[in-house]
């Protein structure tokens, strides 16, 4: 396949910006004509996938729409009805399928997500808080001057800065953001372990159609997409989930259970996730974190589970093994190539260093955003089968240790072996470490499609 047209694809799709501060604005469109004129105004702001070649911008802007938003922009019915059903329904309607029950159920979500009035997501990232504010005020004046939308809510997010450098730490202390897949045609410094596993043990990029609409996917088919082709092509679907983290609960749980775990606290924390908190994969370094591995792109994601079928190093239910099972299901990993998602996330809320008091009530968590060509085949499958259920991993009804909805009843088994410092260990009565505060499904169109939407030129025929 030839190189992608990076000038037509929103930059947010093709790369993690690695910009440390962000604000997400949630818009409700006013009159359709004014909303379209707002989009026309914003077009010049939208960051594309063009290479930066060293000159990283101070800030970026990207936009995506809910199905209600597209309705409000008066896309033709024949187009609106051609979107995949799960996108038309929206995430709230999919709660049962996603296992968003109990504390995670929509009735507990923030108002903005319960009310279902969000039409668009505007993602603004900045290199500095000042750059972010400057870009936000430009965007807000475009909104005001056109009268195209009301800002229903805004969400700040920011990386933890340590010694002046933004990190990829999340609130539980883990280094995050390792496992994004490579795709054919997407220019990116690729590294082994991030695409699909080949029979000879090497890794290759996934088909473009696993990320972008309009290209062949891993089955050699074009992803299900709306008509016309020009509206869909170079676009993708985005999941937005605000995940609250119960930091006090996590620390208490880890502390209490580490007291009876012979491997020690940090090892137990590493077993939960499959990575030590500095990011070292336990599969590669089962006894201690090793920064030379964690920081080496040739090794930090380059591993498989074939030699660890019993989970003695990386537990069967460890987070990274669940959500990216690599070769764990056999068939050279081919059963998972159509279940990969690209994650774009940032933490929100104040960071509380270890030893500093923290409560569950404080506003703190991660803004989880995932991109995929098919919400139902990719994100929803991973969430339903691999996060909220355990059968594929031979774990029965067990759920993901950190992400699952346990309600105090869950269980997580550290398989271990006969080594005294690596004993089998059972974590039971799991609380909910993470709670869903809301979110929705969005369509993230190409630059061409944004122009068509702005000009009212979407023609399904």
């Amino acid at each position: 396949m030839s190189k992608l047209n990076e000038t037509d694809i929103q930059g947010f799709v093709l790369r993690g910006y690695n910009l440390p501060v962000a604000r997400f604005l949630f818009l409700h469109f006013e009159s359709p004509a004014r909303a379209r004129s707002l989009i026309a105004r914003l077009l010049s702001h939208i960051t594309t996938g063009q290479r930066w070649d060293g000159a990283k911008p101070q800030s970026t802007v990207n936009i995506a729409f809910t199905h209600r938003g597209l309705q409000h922009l008066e896309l033709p019915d024949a187009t609106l009805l051609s979107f995949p059903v799960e996108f038309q329904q929206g995430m709230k309607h999919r709660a049962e399928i996603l296992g968003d029950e109990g504390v995670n159920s929509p009735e507990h979500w923030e108002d903005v997500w319960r009310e279902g009035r969000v039409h668009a997501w505007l993602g603004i990232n900045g290199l500095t808080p000042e750059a972010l504010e400057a870009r936000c005020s430009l965007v807000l004046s475009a909104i005001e001057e056109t009268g195209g939308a009301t800002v229903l809510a805004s969400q700040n997010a920011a990386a933890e800065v340590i010694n002046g450098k933004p990190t990829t730490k999340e609130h539980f202390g883990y280094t995050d953001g390792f496992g994004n897949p490579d795709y054919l045609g997407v220019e990116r410094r690729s590294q082994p372990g991030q695409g699909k596993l080949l029979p000879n043990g090497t890794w290759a990029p996934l088909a473009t159609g696993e990320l972008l609409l309009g290209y062949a996917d891993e089955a050699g088919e074009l992803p299900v997409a709306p008509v016309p082709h020009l509206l869909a092509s170079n676009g993708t679907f985005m999941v937005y989930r605000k995940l609250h983290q119960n930091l006090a609960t996590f620390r208490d749980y880890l502390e209490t259970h580490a007291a009876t775990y012979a491997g020690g606290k940090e090892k137990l924390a590493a077993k939960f996730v499959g990575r030590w908190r500095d990011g070292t994969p336990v599969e590669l370094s089962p006894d201690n974190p090793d920064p030379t591995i964690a920081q080496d792109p040739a090794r930090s994601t380059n591993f498989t589970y074939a030699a660890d079928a019993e989970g003695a190093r990386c537990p069967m239910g460890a987070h990274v093994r669940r959500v990216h099972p690599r070769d764990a299901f056999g068939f050279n990993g081919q059963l998972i190539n159509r279940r990969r998602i690209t994650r774009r996330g940032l933490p929100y809320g104040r960071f509380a260093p270890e030893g500093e008091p923290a409560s569950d009530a404080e506003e703190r968590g991660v803004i989880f955003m995932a991109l995929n060509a098919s919400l139902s085949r990719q994100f929803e499958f991973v969430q339903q089968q691999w996060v909220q259920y355990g059968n594929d991993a031979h774990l029965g009804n067990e759920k993901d240790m950190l992400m699952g909805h346990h309600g105090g009843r869950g269980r997580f088994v550290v398989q271990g072996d006969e080594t005294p410092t690596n004993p089998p260990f059972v974590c039971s009565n799991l609380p909910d470490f993470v709670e869903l505060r809301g979110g929705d499904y969005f369509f993230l169109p190409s630059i061409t499609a944004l122009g068509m939407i702005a000009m009212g030129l979407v023609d399904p025929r």
Partner: protein
Amino acid sequence: MPNKNGSVYGLTILSPIIDDEKAVPSHDLQIRNYLAKLSTREDSPFALAPGTHLARLVVMDDVIYVGMPACEEHLKSKYLVFESNCDGDLDAYLHGLADKTPDRLDAIWKHCVGYPGAANRLAFIDYMKACQLDTTFYFAAVNDKSVPETLRALQTQMAVADFIATHQGSDMATLQHEFIQFVAHLKSLPLPKAGSMGPHRDIKTGGRNE
């Protein structure tokens, strides 16, 4: 050898449904209505009778040709499809069904052509076998374990997992003492009823994720 894999039997039965234009509602609709309300728990006919790992009943209306150019073709009849993964010997399995749940069998199969009723045991078994299709490739519910072995294994797994979780870190003497008691207790427990161990699920008609 068809139909068997280790000790597990893959049974497929196709029974033609009575085509009677005077029947209101038609026989196939009456079967659908009955099946939709059938329990999937302990009082399912396949839980009451011994030996079923997994069973499925489907009303097959017709075949739909989806190729090009379109052509219209039809089955000679509507069929009731009964598929099951069961333990061991087919005669014993059919006997068990007829023993334990004859009313339900009759309520379903009375809408099929030539069904003699479960009370007439030999005729019943002959009928089922006459409707049987050989199967060489079928969904395998378990790894060559009988239904009682599977139920016992699930019960043991759950109990042992609970025991480990509650006794982790106990000193050796306490652990041994309580483990001996635990094993004795576990052995004394009755076999769980078939259909009792999973989460409750309503019968779904498919398309749930659409």
